């Protein structure tokens, strides 16, 4: 049952869920969709572990479950609650949905072209997933660039993190657990710091709109 096509299918689901995170309207929906996306990520790591037979990847998927699926969305939902109505997390993004989807599709395609020249230690069959994880870096950047609310931009950052994690898992499946602990800690602390910054900005400037903040209006 566990085999390379499953990894690829989960990789595709990763794209779909990230797209939903980018397109989500409210902050709450973004957080829940991000949690769902991390769940798919855990699935990718677990199936990759089953395929390559490395126990480290199973540990990774467990820690990723604890940090990404549970902890990070919880932190962000808590921040959202503390900010209250000021959150303005449902400001519309700069690109309409169709262009965002088209942009995501183009990024996935370009990343696929880019990775076609790389030899994976795992297998050639999971190359589409490598393209997907590389594309996540760019999807995260897309999210940061097109969102107007800085609360939503945190999700872009988290998507970039997810992308780099899956890339790491694909290129170095036998890496020791210490690496994973370091990476997870970095993710958690970065999110905490970002959340605190967002809360302070909301408190003092009373706006989370990036356009206004760039001109120091409040």
């Amino acid at each position, binding site marked *: 049952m566990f085999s390379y096509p499953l990894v690829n299918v989960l990789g595709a689901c990763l794209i779909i869920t990230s797209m939903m995170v980018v397109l989500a309207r409210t902050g709450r929906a973004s957080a829940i969709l991000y949690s769902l996306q991390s769940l798919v990520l855990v699935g990718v790591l677990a199936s990759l572990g089953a395929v390559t037979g490395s126990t480290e990847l199973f540990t990774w998927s467990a820690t990723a479950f604890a940090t990404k699926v549970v902890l990070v969305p919880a932190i962000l939902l808590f921040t959202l609650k503390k900010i209250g109505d000021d959150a303005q997390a449902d400001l519309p993004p700069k690109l309409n949905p169709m262009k965002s989807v088209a942009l995501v599709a183009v990024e996935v*395609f370009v990343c*696929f*072209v*880019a990775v076609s*020249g790389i030899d994976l230690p795992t297998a050639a069959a999971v190359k589409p997933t490598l393209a997907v994880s590389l594309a996540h870096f*760019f999807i995260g*950047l897309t999210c*940061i*660039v*097109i969102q107007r609310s800085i609360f939503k931009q945190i999700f872009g950052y988290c998507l970039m993190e997810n992308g780099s994690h899956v890339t790491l898992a694909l290129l170095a499946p036998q890496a020791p657990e210490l690496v994973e602990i370091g990476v997870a800690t970095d993710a958690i602390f970065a999110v905490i710091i970002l959340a605190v910054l967002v809360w302070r900005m909301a408190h003092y400037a009373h706006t989370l709109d*990036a*356009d206004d903040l*760039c*001109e120091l209006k409040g």
Partner: protein
Amino acid sequence: MLELILLSLGFSCVAGVLSLVTSKAHAASKTIACVGGMGAAALSFIGGLGALFQAATYVSWAGPMPFTNFTLLLNPLAGLLIAVIAALAFVAWLYGLSYFDEYYETGIGVIGFFMNLFIASMNLVILADNAFWFLVFFELMSLTSYVLVIIDQTEKSLKGGFLYLIMAHIGFLMIALSFFAMASATGSLEFEAFRTHAFAPGIATLAFVLAFFGFGAKAGMVPFHSWLPQAHPAAPSNVSALMSGGMIKIGIFGICKVCFDLLGAAGGEIGWGVLVIIIGAVSSVLGVVYALGEHDLKSLLAYHSVENIGIILLGVGVGIYGWAAGLPWLAAIGLLAGLYHLVNHAMFKGLLFLGAGSVLHATGTRNMEVLGGLAKAMPVTAVCFLIGSLAISAIPPLNGFVSEWFTYQGLIGAAMDGDIFMRIVFAFAVVALAITGALAVTCFVKAFGVTFLARPRSEAAERAHEVPAPMKAAMVILTVACIALGLGAAWVAPVVSSIAGSMLATAALPVVEGVTLVSLDTVSVVSPLIMAVLMAVVIALCALARNAANQKAGVKSDPDTWACGYQADLSMETLASTVGANVKTFMGPLYAIRSGVNRAGEALSRLLGRALEPEGEKAPAAPAKPDAPISRYDRDRTVGIAPAEQHAPALSNSVLSVVSDLGAWFGRMEGGDFRTYIVYIVGALVFFLALIILVR
């Protein structure tokens, strides 16, 4: 067969000269030109058809200088083109028997002479097998058609003619450069020498690209399409039919000849096919989008020629791609699709132009906004125009559908075997073709509906009458041809397939089983004949049932339409601008491209003009006022063109304005928004990574 064609050329020349000589006696001149032209056309039609089933004929007479050997080659492709042009010429001359009555004052002798010469030069271009004579006859073709375009001597037709002349010569220059590139590699101007010489890849690509754009300018593809909607409407309608149905096909003929025939020895590049496909896709979409903005009937049809040339190029592009990639069945089906659409387009575009000419003859105007209700006064014209509209919109079971079906099968079949880039290209082409089809339906519902249906919106439309018998006969002939090419596709397709096979020097692709057309590669079948029978049966059953119910309950006719509580009046009818405005809502960016390019062009020409004039001159006079509209429904609304500015800057001011524009542009780039900077950083990163990979 070649003798028949040469005989018909002689006929044309004699008829032309005679009609010029007798130009004072109008009726005699017209009859001599038309009857002589019809005879010549009949002869070359038989000759062309005969050439389809024979091996190639090659003759050569020595000329005064070594490069001026008069060489002619009649192969199946040439035979197809000659037959198509002959058919259109025959119909155009038949139409002219009544239509040219209006042109007595403008010089019927001149028209007869130049039109005969035009047709003769087209035939000679197709037959010529020596680069020198090819260019000579190409130039002759352009010059004779130029005279025909400006025959009305109005401001618009002179402008259109001039633009046409410039574009024709740009094309001529590029074709000449291409031939000279090939000649320099072989040392001779004979096509036979090109055929047998295996060119180096660089020279071959250079020659192909030059020839493609040169012949493409003649064919009217994007970006060389701007002359079509200005030149074709200015010519007399049957000449427009001949130009649009015949002359622009010579562009396609040239591309095929250069690619498969002259450069064939070395094999082609996949890049050529991709270039042709992309330009074909863009041409087809832009052509139909711009057609939707027109309310002059003939300009609309001219833009549709741009669209259909795009569709033909899609088929030819698939053929080139298949040939270069070593997939002979793909090349065969692509060429089959392109050539079949070439024939179909000649038929239905000729029919539509003749219909537009009939409307012009009957009402005196081509402006759709003030027409309407012509179907009652001109029933034969209306039915022919309707069938032409259905054919060009690719509605089954007519001929347009058959050739577009083959084009789709070629594109999808190519995608099944292609690699990732090619799949994206073919997907783009398929989507472009589908959008074109949907927009063409919109455009022709508009063209036919606004012109022929509802009620007349002006006096001119109310006074309309049916056209005389020769014009009707001409339109009916082409209508029957459209229907026959559609229903009889099972008999026409193998012939076209064998022509494609002869071009590729392979056996013909089997595309027919019984009365169905098959595409073996995509496991798919279609049968226009059976579909027509089924459609007729089912629709007749429904209509009979409805009429039976009507017999029982009765049918009344109510002149007062209920318009939701209002009294219906003429201002409620649909105009061409209604449809255009609706489409512009969704396709705005495409019109903005054209108006942007126009504004830039006008600014540039004003800049140059102003720079060459001394300071202190007045600004140029405002453009002449248009004639008073014939009816209050004539709102001159062409979509998307901005009015010219009144005051142009002088040379020094223009330098300053350029600098300030650059400054403003840089100011926009550094907006102060951190997100744009992120995009710049990532872009630079990706660029350098790509550079490293490529250099490695």
